[in-house]
């Protein structure tokens, strides 16, 4: 079986309000904390949808669009940088599983 990369995997997911360009983010990350005191920057690898990324300079960035609401970062970040909520059904993103 072909090894799928994450982009191919995320391509299989039905996101809500996908046509809306201006969604309300349900997770806020204080990247100042990421980029100053965080010793592990673990969300950049434990997030199963790769919403947390690191650039060439080692700086952490967050974007919510691909988030699959799994909850991982809410527990994994022990630095208090993550404010986690569920997406708003009308103006948020989030998922609708076809199988689940």
């Amino acid at each position, binding site marked *: 079986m072909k090894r799928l990369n*994450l982009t191919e995997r995320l391509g*299989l997911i039905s996101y809500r309000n996908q046509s809306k360009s201006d969604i309300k983010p349900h997770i806020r990350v204080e990247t100042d904390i990421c980029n100053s005191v965080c010793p592990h920057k673990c969300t950049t690898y434990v997030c199963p949808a790769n919403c947390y990324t690191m650039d060439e300079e080692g700086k952490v960035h967050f974007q919510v669009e691909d988030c699959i609401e*799994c909850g991982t970062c809410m527990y994994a970040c022990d630095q208090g940088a993550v404010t986690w909520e569920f997406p708003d059904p009308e103006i948020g993103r989030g998922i*609708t*599983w076809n*199988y689940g």
Partner: protein
Amino acid sequence: MDEKFDCIIVGAGVAGLTAAMILARNNMKFLLIEKGEFPGSKNVSGGVIWGEDLSRLVPEYWHETDGGWDRYINHRRLTFIDEQSSFSIDFKSDHFNTPPYAGIVVLRSKFDRWLAGKVEEAIAESDFAMDSFIATNILVEEILMEKDKAVGIRTGDEKFYADSIILAEGVNNLLTRQAGLQNDYVPADHILTGVKEIIRYDQNVLEDRFQLNGLSGMSNEYVGFATRGVEGGGFLYTNRDTISIGLVLGLKDLRKKGLKPHDILSDFKAHPVIKDTIRGGEVVEYSAHVVSSGDKRIMPKKLYKDGLLVCGEAANLLMNAGKAIQGMDYAMRSGILAAESAIKARDAGDFSSHIMKGYQDALNNSYVMQDINNFQDAVHLLHNPVMYQKMPNLINHFGRNFFTIRNEPTKKAHAMFRESVSEHASWMDLIKIGIKGARSL
């Protein structure tokens, strides 16, 4: 809808739908609120529902072969894997072929939706056919409190009031935390991240591949190299024409080891043994969700307050001691018990902690808390590196020697075993694990 409800349930997962079914049957006027587009649309499980409680909710559900469930389990396998090999304990029995089934495989987007349909039917037959509702697409943002008693919920600018509130919001239990029953920040220590794929086959191919007959199904759990040395394990379950394959990974260990869950899943699927098992299918969904470990240390101490009850995985009710994950059956049983307490409270006209405490007592007396209490050692054992790393290596080393027939004198099995032990562990490890294992099981 400005009148007060007898009860508001937050979350239409297994726990919330179960509670709703019991409320409807007992003529309670209730509101079940779900943030997803439809019940199940936000939910992920492995998914085997173990035990027989479903037949209490939907009697003789097994006649509905096109209902919400996919297959019943009559074939179970526990597999230890190292880098190249697998060693399985395999059990299949006719005994499991007759309903009520011992386990059924489900896909939540389909199962929860089906169960919600059954709840709608029960509402229609209740005294509150026009006044009880399942409302979807609504996110509950706040539990309304008055003098430390839960009195209602808020969504956006709208408020709804009820005599009692049942929180069935699942493991990411923001409202349970808001109500002060769990800390705002729950650390990664006893939380796992589950990643999963659904792979589709031609149904005949699937049935031949896994030796299925009619609607029979197989469940396979994996311990060892499946997780690339991260604590946790793997699973493979057969659905109608798809399989569910995935991993649950200890989040603290994942953080420490610097690995990506989706990479570990790819490696698991490429393992020589797994690769042959899943050959030829088409991946149709990738999903992820956190899941509790079954370790009591994470559980909220108190599952009630004045006017409030917490059930299902919102209370971290879960068992994972290697041979199965039990979250949905615990969600069902705790949903039943929470609903029964809400009904008792209505009958008594008393919604204080005094009555609500009866729920936690009932839960403590049920198999759910008895198993959680009795199998804590087994839960810890599964998260012991000897168990998820050394043991699978040792067992496979032994298997390789035992099943190799050479044209030379064959060693006795105990000598082979000694060799495997010295190669992959120590007698001390074994003695310690043996003692712990004997005590924990």
